[in-house]
């Protein structure tokens, strides 16, 4: 198994709302802080990624936002333009008229074009720009498989032409586990866990891209250790509560309510974690990132998550 950060191209995916952008940002941050020349790319441009670095909006043209760390936002149209002029050496692309509408049209007409232009650009950055690490804040689970299998699909649909020639080298990059891997982000909740399990099955069945890691985000801490929960239970009864009110000089029941809430949330989530662990090949590393109470996003949160990932990766 190749270590996650030893790879050059990491697609970070997961169900909507699990913190894909946060994990992508912190993985990229970790890579850069470990001396790798790193590019982080946002694919579904919602503008979230900039928040995690507290930087100006990120555009298609990559920009160095921290030492050794570049960021870009995918724009399929700009990417196609670059692709046509650089890869296919088609001159004077600008003169072909309304490239935008042509692209819109071709993209709707030929399924996979949008996907391949996205994946192609990323593979190209790995191949030509000599980044040590490219982290992709990718599409959600529903879309990532069609994105990753686009070169293969195009290869089958298009029998001749330049596009056909282009898919070969992309597949070489995507299908090499030493180079490329997918990191699936989940939270310990029912749907994210189910989608993660389904996605790992689909990745295996429909693509040759390697599953590099499962990142479990927002793991709640275990509140009480051995024996402590019994003490808490005895405290959380009418006499115990009365006693606590006396000791603290005011109504304190809600403190116990909050602890009870935390314990039951943690318990419900543990079941999902176990289900996930059982379903995922034991060889795949699972990285746990704790729930951050103090900051949900911003640079501070990115640093904290990068630290957590660093510890999980054994650095």
């Amino acid at each position: 198994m190749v270590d996650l950060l030893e790879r050059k191209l990491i697609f970070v995916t997961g169900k909507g709302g699990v913190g894909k952008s946060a994990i992508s940002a912190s993985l990229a941050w970790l890579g850069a802080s470990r001396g790798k020349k790193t590019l982080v790319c946002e694919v579904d441009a919602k503008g979230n990624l900039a928040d995690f670095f507290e930087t100006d909006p990120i555009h298609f043209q990559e920009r160095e936002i921290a030492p050794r760390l570049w960021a870009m936002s995918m724009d399929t149209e700009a990417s196609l333009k670059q692709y046509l002029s650089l890869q296919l050496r088609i001159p004077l692309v600008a003169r072909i008229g309304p490239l935008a509408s042509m692209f819109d049209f071709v993209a709707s007409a030929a399924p996979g074009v949008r996907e391949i232009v996205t994946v192609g650009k990323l593979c190209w950055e790995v191949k030509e720009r000599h980044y040590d690490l490219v982290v992709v804040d990718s599409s959600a689970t529903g879309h990532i498989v069609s994105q990753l299998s686009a070169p293969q699909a195009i290869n089958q649909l298009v029998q001749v032409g330049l596009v056909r020639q282009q898919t070969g080298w992309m597949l070489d990059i995507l299908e090499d586990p030493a180079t490329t891997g997918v990191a699936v982000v989940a939270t310990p909740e029912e749907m994210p866990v189910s989608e993660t399990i389904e996605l790992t099955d689909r990745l295996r069945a429909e693509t040759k891209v390697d599953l590099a890691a499962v990142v479990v985000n927002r793991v709640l801490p275990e509140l009480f250790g051995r024996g402590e929960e019994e003490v808490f239970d005895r405290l959380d009864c009418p006499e115990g509560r009365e006693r606590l009110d006396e000791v603290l000089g005011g109504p304190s029941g809600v403190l116990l309510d909050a602890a009870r809430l935390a314990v039951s949330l943690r318990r419900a989530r543990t079941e999902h974690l176990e289900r996930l662990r059982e379903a995922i090949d034991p060889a795949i590393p699972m990285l746990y990132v704790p729930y951050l109470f103090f900051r949900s996003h911003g640079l501070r949160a990115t640093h904290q998550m990068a630290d957590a990932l660093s510890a999980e990766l054994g650095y």
Partner: protein
Amino acid sequence: MSQVDAAKRPQTTIGGLLASKEIAIACGSGGVGKTTTAAALAAMAAVHHGGKVLVLTVDPARRLANALGLEGFGNVETRIEPDAFKSAGVRPRGELWAAMLDTKQSWDDLVRRHAPDRQTAQRILSNPLYQNISGKFVQSHDYIAMERLYEIHLEGNFDLIVVDTPPTRNAIDFIEAPQRMAEFFSSRLLRLLIAPYRSRMVNLATRPFYQVADRVLGSQFLEDIAEFFILFQTMYSGFVERARAVERVLHDSRTTFVVVSTLEAAPVREAEFFIRVLSSKRFHLGGLVLNKVLPHYLLDEGAERRASRLYDDAPEFAATEGFADALGADRQQLARVLYEVGENFRNFNIVARREAAQRKELAVRPDVVATAPEFDADIHDLPGLLRLGERIWT
């Protein structure tokens, strides 16, 4: 107050809102509990308003689908057994039905409906490009969800349809899907691409377009595309008309949108965006449902002060005469428990404060705002749906 005035007055509860609507569309970003909320609203409407209520879901959790008896039914509307309500201790006034969206099946039905004859339909259905578009690519979900909604609405079998929207890249995509579909079929470029395969006449102005397209995609593939669209064009007028009709239904005064969110930063921002777009496009914004909201007591300032004291001086409190003994614990153990209780409250207090700030920032909002707590267990049966429903209904 006269009845007319009462009808004009804005609704103040989700229950009141749904009483006067025939279609309710739940939307919002991923992971906020859209599917569950849509199902809970439908179940509540069946219980309280009566009539036939359908929830059209896109991708329910397997256990929820099982509980609703949806496994294996897919596109077919299926009635939830009245016994399921009995076990929840409720006697519904109406019927609850459910259907799951099967994208591929819905596309196939659409082709069969609009194709001029069975042969053409068959040729389209077996075209590899069609299979790719209908089965694989996520964008096609947007349109088909709205199309399916329209079809069910047109059949007139239900008093209320609650729709769960597909996870789109951009939460707003599905609203515009019918219009985009209509535009696509009317597009000049579509005619442009098909032209050479019809007339073999390529004029000077458009030649560069073909040269590029040919070089990039290869002529065989271009021909495949053209054939596919020539076939598809036979359905042109039916499609465009249909897409426009779907759009009309979305704009109808009997249709309402319910935005679903949590109070985390990213979903709130998306909800705000959504609310803005819905208002600017003159869709009916009926309500906002906030899910997984932490309990209010976490904001209690007195409690927060006491939590901080516990956190700072747990050993001293644990040493209070007779305290540990009464609990049958040693002082160290009790100190540890008290410290954790204090820290935990402070932690959740911070999250709750952040949520309160997010709620305040939601400046533009609909008349109806409902809040549901984070439940201990996942919701995967009718009693669970009704528990959630009770919290947001009134």
